[in-house]
């Protein structure tokens, strides 16, 4: 019962944030909407007993990533309103028709009950408790190679970002 109420509250908050991202004219408002969605998802993770993932979600996404976004928004400046005129005239009608077909198909499958989300799962199993110890055990036994590869990926990304900034400065100096 508690989970039901939480699901609807947080789900509505997440969807509202996501809609804000799309429809906000001001880029800062879009960033705030994304922040709301990220926080709502963090609480949903806690409801699903993914404690460590929820903490990382708040620290990495709501902390680091959103700070980076806000920095860049301030650097670039809040853009003037976008030009919404369409250069391909037939595109909107085509997309509208396709969207209607997909909506009918997807809605029919979902509400017709033919669409099982997790077919191979045995229902009623215990919810895995994502404590730090449990996740770390899984991470450093079965997934250790993927863990090392992501470490490499992060190093490459950091070096690449620095290189992008450096190259620009050298060109300007010449």
């Amino acid at each position: 019962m508690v989970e039901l109420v939480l699901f609807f509250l947080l789900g509505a908050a997440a969807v509202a944030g996501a809609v804000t991202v799309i429809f906000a004219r001001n880029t800062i408002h879009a960033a705030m909407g994304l922040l709301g969605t990220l926080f709502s998802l963090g609480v949903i993770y806690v409801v699903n007993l993914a404690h460590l993932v929820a903490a990382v979600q708040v620290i990495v996404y709501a902390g680091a990533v959103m700070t980076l976004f806000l920095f860049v928004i301030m650097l670039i400046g809040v853009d003037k309103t976008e030009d919404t005129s369409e250069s391909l005239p037939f595109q909107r009608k085509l997309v509208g028709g396709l969207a209607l077909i997909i909506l009918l198909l997807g809605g029919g499958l979902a509400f017709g009950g033919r669409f099982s989300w997790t077919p191979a799962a045995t229902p009623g199993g215990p919810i895995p408790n994502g404590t730090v110890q449990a996740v770390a055990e899984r991470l450093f036994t079965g997934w250790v190679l993927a863990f090392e590869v992501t470490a490499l990926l992060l190093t490459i990304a950091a070096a690449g970002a620095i290189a992008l900034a450096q190259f620009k400065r050298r060109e300007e100096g010449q």
Partner: protein
Amino acid sequence: MIVTAGWYMTLAAVLFTIGLLGILVRRNALVMFMCVELMLNAVNLTFIAAGRAHSTLDGQVSVFFVLVVAAAEVVVGLAIIVAIFRNRATASVDELSGLRG
């Protein structure tokens, strides 16, 4: 009523669709980038829900890797957006047609 994994997956599908819609509709590169983050988060929610349905921790471990890749992607992507902005003084993807044939 009991909240099952399918409910969370429905929410994730809605969030993913909103993110996709944003990428198709908006032209500000920063907002498009936020929509990518939205889609990644929707997939993370799917991982958590599937891990819950299968009673395994692997779903939560997968979320970690998605988080790391998303962080790396944000760093490089924002660096590219800033570099483009310095050259062309715009963040609108429609005006970046320098490679058009």
